[in-house]
């Protein structure tokens, strides 16, 4: 009898140890990250332009670089970072259970996520919106002509609900085909299983780029939803929230006041009080956040300003060929607007 109980005890102890991290309260997130020596960021593992390792295994993407900016601000080194791949199902739970310090995984900020899920979304790092990708031979000009269509849906953020809302509002019907695997879904769409494919416009650009013949496909002009994609942190640590928030804003502000990775060293000698405060030549901002005064300098030096990060990952020179659009600076008709750094 006792022999048969022994493995049982081993399992119970193992289970107990698994349950322990749940109660371990690490205190302030910044202290925990500093003590650990690196930052843990939850990312999308397979979204080109936002979060995906390249062929050499180096992580690339707008969300990935946002995470690196936080690491650069804390440690002065963007590579003191560990990326954790999360699915749409696991991402919020991983953040809530302290598996990751920050979530940079193309997540849309919504009211229920901010409240019921106990998350704080910080400054938006990409303004997206849901659209439709169609084969050109379908011969329609607007999504409102899609009555009765089969719609391939990439499940994820708020996609399924948006598309249902759009069809209901316009009193037209649809048949959704929801496939979780990107590759399977793309195949189903390219082989004509669906009349159109719906997802965030940035993703549609990526899917169109891998089509057998990209010129046969087009993205309809209708954008049916607002998807402000933003990094998120847990409720309850306001200092940490501020740090992540201003890391994103620092990249936007740098572009706004004309600082980039090439001229940043030169501008350390600038007389402009805004620039001096931003780069920590005039101290204050770093202390207020609980960081080194060089934090914003490090972000721009190591990663560049928002414009550089955008162009490198999703801009016109990349496969995605995305225009700045809503993501341009406020001066250029976009929504990117950073508050004063003082």
């Amino acid at each position: 009898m006792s022999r048969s109980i022994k493995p049982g005890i081993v399992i119970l102890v193992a289970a107990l140890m698994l349950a322990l991290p749940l109660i371990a309260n690490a205190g302030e997130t910044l202290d925990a990250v500093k003590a650990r020596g690196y930052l843990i960021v939850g990312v999308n593992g397979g979204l080109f332009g936002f979060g995906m390792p390249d062929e050499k295994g180096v992580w690339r993407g707008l969300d990935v670089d946002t995470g690196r900016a936080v690491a650069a601000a804390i440690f002065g080194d963007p590579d003191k970072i560990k990326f954790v791949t999360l699915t749409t199902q696991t991402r919020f739970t991983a953040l809530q259970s302290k598996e990751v310090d920050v979530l940079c995984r193309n997540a849309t900020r919504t009211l229920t996520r901010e409240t019921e899920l106990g998350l704080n979304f910080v400054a938006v790092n990409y303004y997206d919106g849901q659209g439709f990708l169609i084969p050109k031979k379908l011969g329609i000009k607007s999504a409102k002509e899609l009555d009765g269509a089969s719609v391939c849906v990439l499940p994820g953020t708020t996609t399924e609900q948006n598309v249902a809302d759009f069809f209901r509002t316009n009193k037209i019907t649809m048949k959704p085909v929801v496939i979780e695997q990107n590759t399977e879904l793309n195949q189903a769409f390219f082989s004509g299983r669906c009349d159109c494919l719906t997802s965030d416009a940035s993703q549609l650009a990526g899917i169109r780029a891998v089509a057998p013949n990209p010129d046969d496909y087009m993205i309809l002009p209708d954008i049916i939803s607002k998807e402000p994609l933003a990094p998120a942190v847990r409720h309850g640590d306001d200092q940490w929230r501020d740090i992540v928030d201003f890391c994103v804003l620092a990249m936007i502000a740098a572009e706004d006041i004309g600082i980039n990775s090439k001229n940043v060293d030169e501008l350390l000698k600038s007389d402009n009080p805004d620039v001096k405060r931003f780069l920590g030549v005039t101290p204050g901002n770093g202390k207020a956040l609980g960081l080194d005064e060089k934090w914003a300098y490090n972000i721009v030096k190591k990663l560049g300003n928002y414009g550089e990060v955008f162009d490198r990952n999703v801009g016109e020179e990349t496969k995605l060929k995305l225009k700045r659009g809503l993501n341009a600076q406020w001066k250029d008709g976009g929504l990117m607007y950073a508050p004063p750094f003082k």
Partner: protein
Amino acid sequence: MNQATKTISQTHHIPFWRDPAKRGIVLQVVALLFVLMLGYYVFSNTQANLRRQSIATGFGFFGKEAGFEIGEPMISYSAADTYARALLVGVLNTVKVSFAGIVLTILIGLFVGIARLSKNWLVSNLAKGYIEALQNVPVLLQLFFWYGLFHNALPLPRQSINPLPGVFINNRGFYLPLPEAHPAYKWMAPALLAAFVISYFLKRWSRTRQDLTGQTFPVFTSFMCLSIGMPLLVWLVSGAPTGMDLPHLRGFNFIGGFSFSPEFGALLIGLVLYTSAFVAEIVRAGIQAVSHGQTEAAASIGLRPKLVLTLVILPQALRVIIPPLTNQMLNLTKNSSLAIAIGYPDFVAVANTTINQTGQAIEGVALIMVTYLVISLVTSAFMNWYNKRTALVER
């Protein structure tokens, strides 16, 4: 003698920790308490953590509007319905594909299993090839294969294959004509039921008669005649309506008639072929477990080969077949959750969307587990009951 006194004295003076039976009970109680405490600890810990991070818990989301569409609901459903109804649609879809899958699996498995034992070299080796090929390819790959075949090999709706009038096959689905609504169809169901009841009493009567006189009665043939004939009679009497609801192309897709999607088709075919290979092996093993002497004995009392199989071999083989067959039925049901990979809106797919939208991952996953547990327990309860009925009464 010495041995006996020792035993007696032991039963009198033995302390409970030396008595394996009592010690066992104590240890089990301790283990149970430990498990319960651990369960309570994990539960209260999770609750406290969720509360501290002000994360909403509970099943309050059931009553909220789901706001998403589902591909092929069996009951009326729209995006304006609640999450509870959306999840019910998912459960029904899972039950639909599992039930259809189990029935087809058993039929094909039985057929292939018997073919595997055929004395004909070609038949036996074809069955062997079927079993080996399908058993050893992961079921997920098979699903991808069938789904890929469906949407790549079949034409677009406008170029549908039209093998029979009213029947259309394209990469959006399979469309069959359905009889138009008519009062006659309402009466055909009771007629079929009546046929079943009559057949049941016929069977009882024929068994009593056989016990008394030894005369047999063709019960199965009369059952088939009744269950086809009676509804047909009702249909003829009520005017033989022939109006059909034909599927037709409107806009992008076909509407009307009866249809099922390539996702359902691929899932059903994939699951059935994979599981039937295992069932075929179980059937073969069950039949071979009945010793050859039984066949010879049955033949020696003059039973024809068909009767040898149905009266002597199969009843004994079933005893061996049913328990592992139950396992395969459960496997098929659980494997149906792979539907999510090829876009069939089964319970897991709907629950996943629900988790996505509400963020209530713990509740959602718990719900998935409980649902599959209930489906599995019901299936095995039924099979255990059936097993008891067919088990050989040992004398």
